[in-house]
C-alpha cells in the first residue's frame, strides 16, 4: 500500500520539471530555514511515536516523508545521511519498542526500511534529473533569445532571462499570466489557424508584433514548438522569440528610402516627359501657326490669279483651257478647306477641355434639328432614343455627334428612304452612344482606317469630304477617356459607337 502511494509522488517530483525549478528558484530562500527544521521535527515525532507506541503497523514507513522533504533541500550526500538516520531510528525503535510480536515487528521494520531505502533511491534519481534540468534551465537563461513556456491555456509557466530583457517583465511577474494578453500579441493570421498548424505539425514560425512592459512595440521572429505528454496530448508550447524590431525598422527605413528614391525618379521622369511634351506642343503650335499664315497665302494667290485669268481671258480661252483654269480654282479651294480642317483638328488637340454636365439628349436634338433643316427635301426617318447626361466638354461633344450625324446623312444620300437611329447603352461605368444608318456602309476589312486623318473609304466622286471628320471624333473621344468603334456592311449601312466614362 504505502509503497504504491509514494511512487507517483517521486515521479511527480521529476515530472514537475521546469515549473518546479522555477518555483524552487523563487521560493528557495524561505524554504532553506523552515524546511529542515520541520523535517527534523517530523523525524523526531515519528521516532518518538514509533518507539513509545506498540502499533501493529509499519509506522516507520512515515520516514519516507522525512526523506522526501530532505530531498528538497539536501544534496545527494546529505540525503543518504538522512536516509541512514531514518534507518537507524527505525532499527532503534524496533529494538526498544516494548512488547508485541517479534515476528510482526520484524516484518514491519523490514517493510519500513525497504520503503525508506527505495524512496531515497528514487529521490536521489529525481535530484539528479532536477539538477540536469536546472543546468539546462540556466543554459536557457544564458541564451540571447527570449524563451518562455506557456501551457495550453496560454498561461506562462517558464520565463527566461532573455524574455525578461526583451519584454521588461521579470519571471515572477510573467509566470501565471496569459502570454498573449501580457504581451498584447498581434497576430498576422487568425490565432485559430495558427494553433491548428501548431497541433498538426508540432511547430509554427512567423513574425509577431508584441508589447514590452513600457508599452513600446517589439517585433519578433517567433518559433513555437509543441510539447506533448506520454499520451501524446499537447501540454505546453515553447515559444522562442528573437527581437527583430531594429532590423525591421531598418528594413522599413530602407524600403521607405527606396520608395522615396523611386518616387523622386518617377517625378523627374514625369517632369522630363512633361517638358518634352511641352516642347513638342510648342513646336506643333508654331508649325500650325506657320501653316495657317504661310501656306494659305500662296493658295489665295493661286485662286486669286486663276480667277483673274479666267475673267481676263474668258473670251480668248478655248473650252479645254477654260476647264484647266476652272480645275486650278477648284483644287485651290479644296486645299484651302483641307488646310482649314487640318488646322481645326490640330487646334482640337491643343485646346483645353472644359468639362461640365452635358445633356446629350439636348445636344442630339440640336444636331438633328440642324440637319433636319438641311435635309428637308429628303425622306429620312429619325429614330432617337432617350439619351442620359454625361460629363464632358459640350462644344467638343457637339462636334462628335455633329460629325457622326453628318456622316449618316451623307452616306444615306443614295437611299430613297433613309433611316438614321441614335441610341444609347447606359453602362455601369460608361455611357455608349451610337449612330446607325442604312447608307453606303463600309468594308469591315478597312475598319482600322476609318478614324485616321485624311483616310477615306469612298471615292471623292461618290461622297465628298476631307477625311478629317472621324479623326476629329476619335481625338475628342480619346481626350475624354472614351473609345470609338464602328461596324458596317457594304451597301447595308454602318453603326458608329462612342463611349464616355461616367466619372
Amino acid at each position, binding site marked *: 500500500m504505502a509503497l504504491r502511494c509514494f511512487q507517483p509522488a517521486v515521479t511527480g517530483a521529476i515530472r514537475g520539471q521546469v515549473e518546479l525549478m522555477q518555483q524552487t528558484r523563487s521560493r528557495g530562500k524561505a524554504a532553506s530555514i523552515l524546511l529542515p527544521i520541520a523535517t527534523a521535527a517530523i523525524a523526531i515525532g515519528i521516532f518518538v511515536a514509533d518507539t513509545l507506541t506498540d502499533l501493529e503497523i509499519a509506522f516507520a514507513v512515515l520516514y519516507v516523508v522525512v526523506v522526501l522533504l530532505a530531498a528538497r533541500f539536501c544534496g545527494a550526500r546529505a540525503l543518504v545521511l538522512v536516509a541512514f538516520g531514518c534507518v537507524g531510528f527505525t532499527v532503534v525503535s524496533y529494538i526498544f519498542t516494548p512488547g508485541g510480536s517479534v515476528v510482526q515487528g520484524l516484518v514491519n521494520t523490514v517493510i519500513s526500511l525497504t520503503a525508506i531505502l527505495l524512496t531515497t533511491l528514487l529521490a536521489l534519481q529525481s535530484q539528479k534529473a532536477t539538477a540536469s534540468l536546472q543546468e539546462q534551465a540556466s543554459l536557457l537563461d544564458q541564451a540571447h533569445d527570449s524563451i518562455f513556456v506557456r501551457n495550453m491555456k496560454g498561461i506562462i509557466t517558464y520565463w527566461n532571462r532573455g524574455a525578461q530583457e526583451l519584454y521588461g517583465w521579470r519571471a515572477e511577474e510573467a509566470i501565471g499570466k496569459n502570454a498573449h494578453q501580457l504581451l498584447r500579441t498581434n497576430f498576422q493570421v487568425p490565432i485559430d489557424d495558427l494553433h491548428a498548424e501548431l497541433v498538426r505539425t508540432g511547430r509554427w514560425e512567423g513574425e509577431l508584433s508584441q508589447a514590452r512592459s513600457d508599452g513600446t512595440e517589439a517585433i519578433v521572429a517567433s518559433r513555437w514548438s509543441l510539447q506533448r505528454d506520454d499520451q501524446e496530448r499537447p501540454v505546453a508550447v515553447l515559444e522562442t522569440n528573437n527581437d527583430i524590431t531594429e532590423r525591421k525598422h531598418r528594413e522599413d527605413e530602407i524600403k521607405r528610402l527606396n520608395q522615396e528614391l523611386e518616387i523622386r525618379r518617377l517625378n523627374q521622369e514625369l517632369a522630363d516627359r512633361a517638358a518634352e511634351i511641352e516642347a513638342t506642343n510648342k513646336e506643333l503650335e508654331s508649325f500650325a*501657326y506657320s501653316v495657317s499664315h504661310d501656306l*494659305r497665302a500662296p493658295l489665295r494667290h493661286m485662286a486669286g490669279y486663276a480667277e*483673274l485669268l479666267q475673267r481676263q481671258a474668258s473670251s480668248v480661252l478655248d473650252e479645254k483651257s477654260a476647264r484647266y483654269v476652272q480645275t486650278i480654282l477648284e483644287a485651290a479651294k479644296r486645299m484651302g478647306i483641307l488646310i482649314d480642317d487640318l488646322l481645326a483638328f490640330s487646334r482640337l488637340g491643343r485646346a483645353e477641355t472644359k468639362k461640365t454636365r452635358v445633356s446629350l439628349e439636348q445636344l442630339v436634338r440640336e444636331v438633328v434639328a440642324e440637319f433636319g433643316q438641311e435635309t428637308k427635301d429628303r425622306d429620312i426617318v429619325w429614330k432617337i432614343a432617350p439619351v442620359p447626361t454625361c460629363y464632358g466638354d459640350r462644344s467638343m461633344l457637339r462636334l462628335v455627334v455633329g460629325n457622326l450625324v453628318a456622316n449618316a446623312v451623307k452616306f444615306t444620300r443614295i437611299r430613297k428612304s433613309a433611316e438614321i437611329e441614335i441610341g444609347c447603352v447606359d453602362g455601369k461605368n460608361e455611357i455608349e452612344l451610337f449612330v446607325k444608318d442604312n447608307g453606303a456602309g463600309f468594308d469591315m476589312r478597312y475598319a482600322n482606317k476609318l478614324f485616321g486623318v485624311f483616310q477615306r473609304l469612298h471615292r471623292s466622286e461618290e461622297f465628298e469630304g476631307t477625311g478629317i471628320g472621324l479623326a476629329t471624333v476619335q481625338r475628342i473621344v480619346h481626350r475624354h477617356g472614351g473609345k470609338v468603334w464602328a461596324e458596317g456592311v457594304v451597301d447595308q449601312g454602318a453603326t458608329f459607337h462612342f463611349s464616355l466614362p461616367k466619372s
Partner: protein
Amino acid sequence: MSKLGRILLVEDDPRDVELTMTALGEYNLANEVVVLRDGQQALDFLYCQGEFSDRPNEHPAVMLLDLKLPKIDGLEVLQQVKSDERLKLIPVVVLTSSHEEKDKMRSYTLGVNAYVVKPVDFHEFVNAVKELGIFWAVVNEPPPGSMKKAP
C-alpha cells in the same frame, strides 16, 4: 458727293497687294489707298518721319494691317498705335491669313477695331475687301483729324 477717306494698306506680299487693289479697284476705292510694305514703314507714315517727313499730319480713315510683316510685325504696330495718345483713334482692321485664336485674342486685347481673315476663295476675298473698304472709307465717320478726300 461722298467724302472718301484714305486707306492705309500695310501688306508685304506684292501679290496680296495686287489682289487687294484689284478688289478695291472694282469699287473705285483704289485711288484712296496708300500701300506700306512693312511695320517700320507703317510707323514712319503714321509719325510723319523718314520718307514721310513732309506729309501733312492727318490720320487715315482706316488702316488695314497684315500681321506677318518684315522688321516690325503687325501686332507690334497695333500695340504702338493703340498705346499712343495721338494715334489710338485711328481705326485699325487686322487683315490676315491667321485663324489662330492666339492672334485674335492678342489683337482684340490691344484694341483692334476689327479682325478679318483673308478668305482663300477669290470671290469671298473680293467681297471681304470691298465691304471693308466701303464700310471704313465711306460709311463710317472717321474721328476728327482724319484725312479727307481731295475735292
